[in-house]
């Protein structure tokens, strides 16, 4: 299992039956592939649909039916389409149960930076600031390291996405929960030692006596 699959599989376990879920572009999108059989969720896409289904078969694409990454999609029974004001009413009004987003940095306050690298890459925040500020539960899905550098930092050096503390960080090495007291190490990836995680983490972690291995 590669590290992206590991992260996606672990995040998938956070989804509850009946949840409304928005998956960011890239790694978070992979979460859809690993949802347990007995769990039914509805997918929201910020370009204006609830009830997004899998990629259509070739030749069955509808030019007006896409996800926020410009890929063709299908829809499931019960789907509903709407405009951007309603789409973000859902996100910002507290009606979205879970959003899963990629991250560049998360810090000891649980705050996320994920939308720009000054002077290098300025794609824009898209819906990220709304999602992190408005969703009921925010899960960050990212690799633990960027090259040699830890992405779990003392204080974000990149521009913040929101003041709101995220709810869970899932990496290829660990599951970490931002709490009032700081970042709590909740699980370690299969075969990864607590000492490895500490070495790969710039931020201070709260380490319980027993840190279970992720079940994915």
């Amino acid at each position, binding site marked *: 299992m590669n590290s992206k699959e590991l992260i996606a599989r672990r995040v998938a376990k956070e989804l509850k039956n009946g949840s409304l879920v928005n998956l960011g572009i890239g790694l978070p999108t992979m979460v859809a592939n690993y949802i347990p059989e007995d769990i039914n969720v509805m997918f929201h896409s910020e370009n204006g649909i609830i009830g997004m289904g899998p990629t259509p078969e070739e030749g069955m694409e509808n030019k007006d039916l896409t996800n926020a990454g410009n890929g063709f999609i299908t829809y499931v029974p019960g789907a509903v389409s709407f405009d951007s004001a309603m*789409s973000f009413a859902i996100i910002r009004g507290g009606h979205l149960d879970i959003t899963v987003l990629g991250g560049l940095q998360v810090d000891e306050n649980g705050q996320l930076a994920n939308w720009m690298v000054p002077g290098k890459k300025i794609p824009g925040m*898209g819906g990220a600031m709304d999602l992190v500020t408005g969703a009921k539960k925010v899960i960050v899905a990212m690799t633990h390291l960027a090259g040699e550098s830890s992405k779990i930092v003392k204080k974000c050096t990149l521009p913040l996405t929101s003041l709101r503390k995220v709810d869970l960080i899932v990496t290829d090495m660990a599951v970490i929960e931002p709490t009032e007291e700081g970042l709590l190490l909740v699980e370690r990836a299969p075969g990864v030692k607590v000492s490895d995680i500490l070495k790969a983490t710039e931020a201070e972690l709260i380490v319980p006596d027993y840190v279970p291995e992720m079940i994915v």
Partner: protein
Amino acid sequence: MEIISVKDVTKYINDGDTLLIGGFLGVGSPDAIINEIIDSGKKDFTVVGNDTSFETNGIGRFVKENKVKKIIASHIGTNPETQKQMIEESIEVELIPQGTLAEQIRAGGVGLGGILTPTGLGTVVEKNKTIVEVDGKKYLLEKPIRGNVAVIKAKKADKAGNLIYSFTARNFNPIMAMAADIVIAEVEEIIETGKINPDEIHTPGIFVDYIVLGGDEK
């Protein structure tokens, strides 16, 4: 409401106008009208849209063809040309969170003087903005956005200008239809007035000034 040829749209558009342009990465984008505006040679637009699409379609073509002075959008990452021109400072880019952008355009259309939102608070978005406290909570005051002309795309129109959109091609089009002095809608089909159930119309025809039959793909 008047049905016009795509050749006539530029009568209603001037150099330097602020254009609200519908579409999300080119989906639900009024491509026939965009191509016509570009061909007309008009320029120096401020363009408001969700994103700058790709270099080959939607708002992306405006950027590629150097028709744009300023872009107001939530995302420019799919169009390297926008980043390039931004770095060269040949265009100005204002990035706005997507939900805030939607509410600002809506505010412009519905007569609000502004809206208060927590999105962007404590980030670079709050730069030069007023912070208003309501019942002990802080919010950014975001102002309404309006355009001289809204250029939008719908699936169907009746001859009274009532519009129906299709799936995710709806996106910013309905709110832009409320927020400009002149509204020009490109549609794939024009049907007789009275053929649409009043409950199924997405944009009332009273918002729409001109309809262009654009066809499915351009």
